[in-house]
């Protein structure tokens, strides 16, 4: 009788223990969710803070069509967003074709030897180099050795170098997802390697590559440190010459060597002024930058999601 009672008592203890441990599970999953929400919550607070601080400027048309000014009330973003757009053109042209080509080589052509390993290590390593070091490279190489000055082409090339590893890695990952059977089918009907790559591999991986390109460009548009390092923190109250002209040959390349400012630089310059009036402008500029980069990132995620849904191997 006594023995049975203690067994029952033990059973209760065991049940209590199980309950306790199950409770721990519940508690941890709540803590885990909260831990992940810290990031999201910060982003939300940050955005609300920017919109509230920059409210008077954010919804006024003048803010987007005015040049920067010595008076906070008149200062606008015109030269900054035009500069950002022009710099992005150079960045896109310099980084995207080269990055995709490098990704294709590493994934489809490179033999498995020390040489390919060496290139791979370099790509991985470049992805981890702080962005300001790219700025130092650009200051030494583009500004002084190649004598391109503190111009749009310098900034575009600098950001191009910066996002090159992003494009390479995205291209490789996208290509890696394509089954060998696709390639073998193309080879079987007599296609050459390049025909296989161009007509099949590249066509099917374009979604993944595009995702990487958009994420890279979003990163480039928000980068500040390397642009400051090349010495571009100046007061720009003019627009670079227009890249498109009304007379033949319709294209004009003078804008490449023009001085410029970009959105994050403009924000930083307003932010580093002691006067709180300019902080309103900085907040509004920050909200604009966040909206642009978040939209680009959301677009990238959407492209990837759609591609994943559409293609089933």
């Amino acid at each position: 009788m006594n023995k049975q009672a203690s067994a029952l008592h033990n059973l209760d203890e065991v049940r209590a223990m199980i309950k306790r441990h199950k409770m721990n599970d519940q508690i941890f999953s709540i803590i885990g969710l909260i831990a992940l929400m810290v990031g999201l919550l910060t982003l939300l607070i940050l955005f609300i803070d920017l919109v509230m601080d920059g409210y008077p400027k954010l919804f006024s048309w003048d803010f987007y069509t005015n040049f920067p000014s010595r008076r906070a009330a008149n200062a606008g973003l015109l030269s900054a967003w035009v500069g950002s757009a022009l710099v992005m053109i150079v960045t896109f042209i310099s980084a995207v074709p080269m990055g995709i080509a490098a990704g294709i080589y590493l994934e489809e052509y490179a033999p498995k030897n020390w040489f390919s390993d060496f290139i791979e290590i370099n790509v991985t390593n470049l992805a981890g180099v702080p962005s300001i070091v790219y700025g130092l490279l650009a200051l030494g190489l583009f500004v002084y050795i190649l004598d391109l000055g503190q111009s749009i082409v310098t900034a575009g090339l600098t950001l191009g170098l910066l996002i090159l590893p992003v494009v390479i890695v995205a291209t490789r990952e996208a290509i890696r997802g394509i089954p060998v059977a696709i390639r073998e089918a193309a080879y079987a009907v007599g296609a050459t390697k390049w025909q296989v790559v161009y007509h099949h591999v590249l066509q099917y991986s374009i979604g993944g590559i595009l995702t990487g390109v958009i994420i890279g460009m979003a990163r480039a548009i928000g980068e500040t440190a390397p642009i400051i390092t090349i010495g571009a923190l100046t007061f720009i109250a003019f627009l670079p010459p227009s890249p498109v002209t009304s007379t033949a040959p319709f294209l004009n390349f003078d804008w490449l060597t023009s001085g410029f400012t970009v959105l994050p630089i403009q924000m930083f310059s307003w932010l580093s002024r002691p006067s709180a009036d300019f902080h309103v402008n900085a907040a509004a500029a920050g909200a604009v930058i966040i909206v642009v980069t978040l939209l680009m990132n959301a677009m990238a995620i959407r492209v990837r999601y759609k591609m994943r849904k559409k293609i089933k191997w």
Partner: protein
Amino acid sequence: MNTVNQVLKNPMDMQISDRLAKNFRRNLIERGIEFILMLAALSAVFITIAIVAILLYESFAFFEHVSLVEFFTDTQWTPLFEDAHYGIMPLVAGTLTTSAIALMVAVPIGTIGAIYLSEFASHKTRETVKPILELLVGVPTVVFGYFALLFVTPLLQKFIPGLPAFNMLGPGIVIGIMIIPYIASVAEDAMRAVPMSMREGSYAMGATRFQTAIRVVTPAAVSGIIAAYILGISRAVGETMVVAIAAGQQPTLTFNPMEGAATITAYIVQVAMGDLPHGSIGYQSIFAAGLVLMLMTLFFNVLGHMSRKKFREAY
């Protein structure tokens, strides 16, 4: 003989020689394309060489004026002053302090987040949460600088009276929040690489999810989790805008987070904002500082990737 001649004149055979010629052209084009693609891949090597060459070249010029002993032992960094001192230690101290604060924020939160994502979250939760974390990575750092200077620091001043407007605590915390997604995703990768059979063994013994996560999965993935921390340090060390905006730019040799200080990156920004003549000692000093920064991040990156490789090989 007759039949042979006939065969040779057969149009089919003409096609074979044509085809060989075409084949030759095809191979030539193929080779050309392969060569161009290889050049593109080599660009990564060229960029690395260019970075190292530029940093070393300007740093050598710098170290002709400044001895290595002075560089590493002097406790003041005032290259732009009349009474110039070239001791990198104040900048290194600032960098390490902000990075340490960032890690104190990011390591616990990132690790818990990774355990949750890998062991607790349903497939659907994971698919929703991960893109959101990616969004956070995409936010430009200059915006986080604004946040540190005009939101976090004023908030902290309510709890810590006497906290100066420029301090290392606020930016450190903000950098920490910035690197949470990074640490969480690398650590989660490591945990997901632990084979299912180990979890099943643990469940079979009656362990709960939490016990399995803490006592089985985490120890098995420890080298990968450490890799996540190390790569996180590397990010924090190289972070520029947040500290340049919110930590003040006064190089003081201190590890006290309540004080303002300059980091290596903030110093480079500060000098670049001024108009320093090419070839002056101030101009060269930012390359020397950049070299130190590059070596620090390289050290952490190599260590992190080695640690990461180790967990990949284990299973």
